[in-house]
């Protein structure tokens, strides 16, 4: 019983969840997702070098709704990783350590990545003449 009243050592579940924590774990998650993207880019480049028939097959996979969903997710991962990566570089230079500025910058990475992902896909569909 007495043990229950002892102060807990700091651990993940005792902290109130914040944007700075979300952006930190998202940096790892998006980085891992981008590794999948690197494999897909390699497949695409190999297909391009192989010839127009195999390239059309791979483009066909990319054009399915699940293919587009994966590419949309990788676009978001790239934008989020880019934004949180720039934030990391600024923190490496000793910036953004004020708590409010830090939390704001964390939120800004998500705002950037969502807007940039939508902008990229809007532009791509515009180029394709779909929109």
């Amino acid at each position, binding site marked *: 019983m007495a043990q229950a009243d002892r102060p807990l050592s700091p651990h993940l579940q005792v902290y109130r969840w914040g944007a700075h924590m979300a952006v930190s774990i998202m940096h790892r998650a998006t980085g891992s997702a981008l590794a999948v993207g690197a494999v897909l880019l390699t497949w695409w480049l*190999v297909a391009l070098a192989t010839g127009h028939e195999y390239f059309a097959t791979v483009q066909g996979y990319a054009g399915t709704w699940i293919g587009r969903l994966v590419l949309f997710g990788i676009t978001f991962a790239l934008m989020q990783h880019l934004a949180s990566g720039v934030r990391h570089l600024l923190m490496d230079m000793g910036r953004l350590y004020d708590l409010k500025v830090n939390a704001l910058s964390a939120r800004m990475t998500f705002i950037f990545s969502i807007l940039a992902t939508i902008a990229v896909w809007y532009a791509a569909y515009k180029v394709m003449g779909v929109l």
Partner: protein
Amino acid sequence: MADMKTPLAKVRGLGSAKDGTHHWLSHRVTAIANIPLVVFFIVSFVGNAGKGHAEWVAWLKQPIVSVLMILFVANMVYHMRLGLQVLIEDYVHDHGTKFASMIALTFVSVLIAALSIFSILRIAFGG
């Protein structure tokens, strides 16, 4: 029986290899290089969206595009290799699994870089 191991042999594998700073710095340098390369990559892929095989080949054949794509792949894969190494170090605790994961990561990284760069060069120099 007398211990014939040298002091160096006893501590090998037990502590820092003293190359953490190089890893950290390489990760940052490749991150900085990735910024313009990713912008180039995104702009190119949006600009060529929906194009067919011949048009993509013509795009990649341009010398500047070939070089930038090789730089992008090489830099990005190196950055990926460094980042995933940290994930393995943080989350894989079993020594054997960690060792196997590290070897597999290095092999896969080199393989995808080689396949990508070979494909780019094949198109760049192809007829």
